[in-house]
Every structure is written in C-alpha cells, then in structure tokens.
C-alpha cells in the first residue's frame, strides 16, 4: 500500500515536473512567398482541405489543440511535426525543382490513395481532417492535374 502511494506520488511529481519542460512550438506569423497556396491556383475547397488535413504537420504553422500543450503529448507531436516537415513542407513548396515537385505530388497522391495520410492517430482526434471517398477523389484529381501541368 505504502509502495503504491509512493509510486503514485513520484509519478505525479514527474508529470507535473515535465510540464515545465519547454518544447519548441511550430508556429509562425508569416507565410513565405514559396507557399503552395500562393504559387498555385488552388480552389477554395481544396485549400481548406489541405489546410485542415495537411498543414498542421506539413507547414511551419500548427494549430494546436489544448491537449497538445500537455506533456508528454507535446513531445510526441513535436517529433511528428519534425518528421512531417522534413518530408514535405507546403510553406517551402516553390523552392523545390519541378522534378521534385512532381515527385512530391506523386507521393502525395499515393499517400492519400492508400489512406496512409492523413495519419490515423491524427484523424482519430481531428475528425474534420479525414477525407470522405468523394473528397479523396476530388483532391487526387486536382493534384493529378497540377502534376501534369508542371
């Protein structure tokens, strides 16, 4: 009994303690001129979909819900965002060569087609981030078009 109590107290202290550990937040006020939306003529509904479903991890600006400010969730999220941005950063779209743009678009299509993106762990919480079958098709069709125009 006493041991359980001690462990509980230790965990509580540690939990409170880690809340004070800083994480770098992925937030930026300005959108660079290389942003995907600025250099491409993106229809409004597609824009909205990309913003809601992709930009949290694939841009320099994440819309954080409250629980993502709680550790250790924030660390978990930080890693995801870092990885996501390394793979694809919509804010830096125009700094890619045409060849790489095409490659990225192809990968985006594959990821959406196979339901690998948006991540399940993400849509689980962000219900509005998941795609309906129709939305998926619409998005893929538009991205195909963009790819062929490059």
């Amino acid at each position, binding site marked *: 009994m006493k041991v359980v109590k001690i462990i509980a107290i230790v965990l509580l*202290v*540690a939990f409170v303690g880690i809340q004070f*550990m800083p994480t770098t937040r992925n937030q930026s006020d300005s959108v660079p001129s290389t942003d995907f939306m600025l250099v491409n003529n993106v229809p409004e509904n597609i824009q909205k979909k990309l913003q809601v479903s992709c930009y949290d991890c694939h841009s320099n600006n994440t819309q954080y819900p409250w629980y993502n400010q709680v550790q250790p969730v924030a660390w978990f999220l930080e890693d995801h965002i870092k990885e996501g941005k390394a793979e694809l950063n919509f804010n830096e779209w125009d700094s890619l060569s045409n*060849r*790489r743009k095409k490659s990225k678009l192809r990968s985006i299509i594959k990821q959406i087609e196979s339901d690998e993106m948006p991540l399940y762990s993400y849509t689980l919480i962000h219900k509005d981030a998941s795609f309906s079958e129709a939305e998926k098709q619409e998005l893929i069709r538009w991205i195909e078009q963009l790819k062929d125009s490059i």
Partner: protein
Amino acid sequence: MSKLKSTLGIVAIAFITLTAMSCKDNKNEQNNADGNHSEMSADEDHSKMNHDNSDEHHDGDKKEMAMSGDGNSQAVLKDYFNLKNALVADDNAKAKELGAILATSLGKLDISKYTDAQQSDLKDIVEDAVEHAEHIAESDIAHQREHFKILSKDVTDMVAITGTEMKIYEQFCPMYDNNKGGAWLSMNEEIRNPYFGDKMLKCGKVQREIN
C-alpha cells in the same frame, strides 16, 4: 523518521526522473536550435555509415564487374542495377541495403565536367533520386517499387546527359501502377520484372536500347 526516509526517497526518485526527462529535452532543444541542420548532420552521419558500407560493396563489385569507380555515372548505374535485381528477387531487406548504397553513390556523382545547363539538370535529378533511394532504404517492398518507378525515370534522365559505357535496355511493364505502367533500365535484354518480381517475372518489353 521513517516518514523522513520515504520523503527523501520520493524526492530522490523524482529528481532522477526529472533529470532523465530533462536529458531528453536537452537533446530536443539542441535539435530544435539546429533545426534542419541537425537532421542533415544526422543524415550525413547516416550516409557516412553507408558510405563505408558501400565502399566495401564497391570493392567487391569492382572486381566482379570490372567497372569504373566512384563519382561517375557508371557507379550510379551499377548500384541502380543491383537494386533492380533485389526488387526482381522480391528481396525487401537487400533492396533496403542497396537503396542506401545507391543514395551514397548518387551523392558522390561528380558533375563538374558538364555544361552549366547540364549541371543544373543533373543536380535536380540527383536531388530527387537521392530522396527516392533513401526512401527505398526504409520502406516495405510495395513502397520500394513505387519509389523505384520514379527513381528509374531519374536515372534514365541522368543517362541521357552522362551517356553510358555499356549498352542499356529501357524496359516497360504496362500493368504496373494500376495499368499506368512502369519503366526500368536493365543491362540484359531479357525481361526480369522489378515491379512484380516472381509474380510476373517476364511481364514487359524492351522499349529502347541506349548506347
């Protein structure tokens, strides 16, 4: 007395936990401070590791295939063909290894002897190809084949600039990728399909001979 002891115990354990946590955090902070930089250096380390690895392989292959060494397009082609053969053999682990090796030899491609326009094209090609090769180094086989399709286009475009010492066949399987098709390069005229492997080993045809 015993209360004091247990309180001390709690404080000690909490202290240790926090220290451990803050270690992780320090690391994080460092990563963040360096941003992409640290990621790049991690990648560099990684490629250095592969680099050593690949040198071993190169040595072995050199004797075997009597081809020219690092830094030229023949080295890239050789590693590309090895990767292709691993995919033909449905060998996911081998393809991972060879993807990393190809990424390294692509990175070492010496483009200085080409014209400015060619250099800029080659730079684009290499940048793209390295990314696909790196993905191949860490993916399941279906993904490897997806990346291999685009990688093959990159390597084909590279050959269009650099030329090739040996005869190469561009081959094409119309069924891959939901019947959109997929092309690849081979040293042999005979079809060995890297997109389907054993499932459809001989599906495809020679599209073009490149000398």
